[in-house]
């Protein structure tokens, strides 16, 4: 496998981890199961969302530097970084609200995370301006 293929595989894998973290947060915020579900889902949600988020960003930037046709200032890459920042900020706040057990705006934060993540996927597939 070439370096490009490795980077692409790991970048996509990181995106799967990110979505798995989002799914775990979703089940935690929206689902039933009470304290037992919280004990089961909170640690993997935080770990997957964190590892996936870092992996997507680092490997994505590496890919952009590796491929001649991409540049970090391409509109679709700048859009991806902005969306990543929005999703990460919402994820950080949701994580701290859950840790401190103060469910204020957990549903709103989850919706922001989900919309930003979906928009990231659309951006990665359609690559507007590429």
């Amino acid at each position, binding site marked *: *496998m070439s370096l*490009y*293929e490795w980077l*692409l*595989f790991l970048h*996509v*894998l990181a*995106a*799967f981890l990110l*979505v*798995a*973290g*989002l*799914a*775990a947060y979703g*089940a935690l915020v929206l*689902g*039933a*199961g*009470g*304290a*037992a*579900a919280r*004990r*089961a*889902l909170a640690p*993997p949600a935080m770990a*997957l969302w964190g590892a996936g988020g870092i992996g997507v960003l680092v490997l994505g930037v590496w890919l952009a530097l*590796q*491929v*001649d*046709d*991409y540049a970090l200032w391409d509109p679709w890459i700048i859009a991806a970084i902005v969306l990543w920042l929005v999703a990460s900020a919402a994820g950080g706040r949701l994580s701290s609200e859950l840790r401190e057990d103060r469910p204020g705006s957990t549903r709103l934060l989850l919706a922001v995370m989900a919309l930003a993540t*979906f928009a990231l*996927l*659309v951006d990665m*597939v*359609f690559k507007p301006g*590429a």
Partner: protein
Amino acid sequence: MMLAIIRPDGWNGPLLVHVGGAMALVGALVVVLALAAHGWRRGDDAAALARPTFRVLALGVLPAYVLMRAGAEWIASEEAVGDEAWVGIGYGVSEAGLLLILVATGLAWRTSRRAAGSPGRAVAVIAGVLLVAYLVAIWAMTAKPA
């Protein structure tokens, strides 16, 4: 590095459905694994987790599988793919995976109806096997081995 990274615009829609469905499928399966493994390890939480485990399988994993597979058929028809190895890996994992998903859903349903016990061990093992298989499929879809 120069690569054929530009694909026809007509492939983007089906690719979005396929990849989005696959991500939702893996995400929901990770939730199932977390719930089932926790119920298996901590018996006192098992009864409370039986119903959520079944609901995630029925309302998360199965619809995501349909989305992933519909996207796969759609993009396969657009691309007119042949019998390349990576396509075979994808279809093989998808079809065997459906069988395992249905078995896990049946086990979780039976346990949630009894309102006691946990499908934890069997469902956790099935979800773990599925996630390893999907890891191979993700590798095949991205690296596209000849």
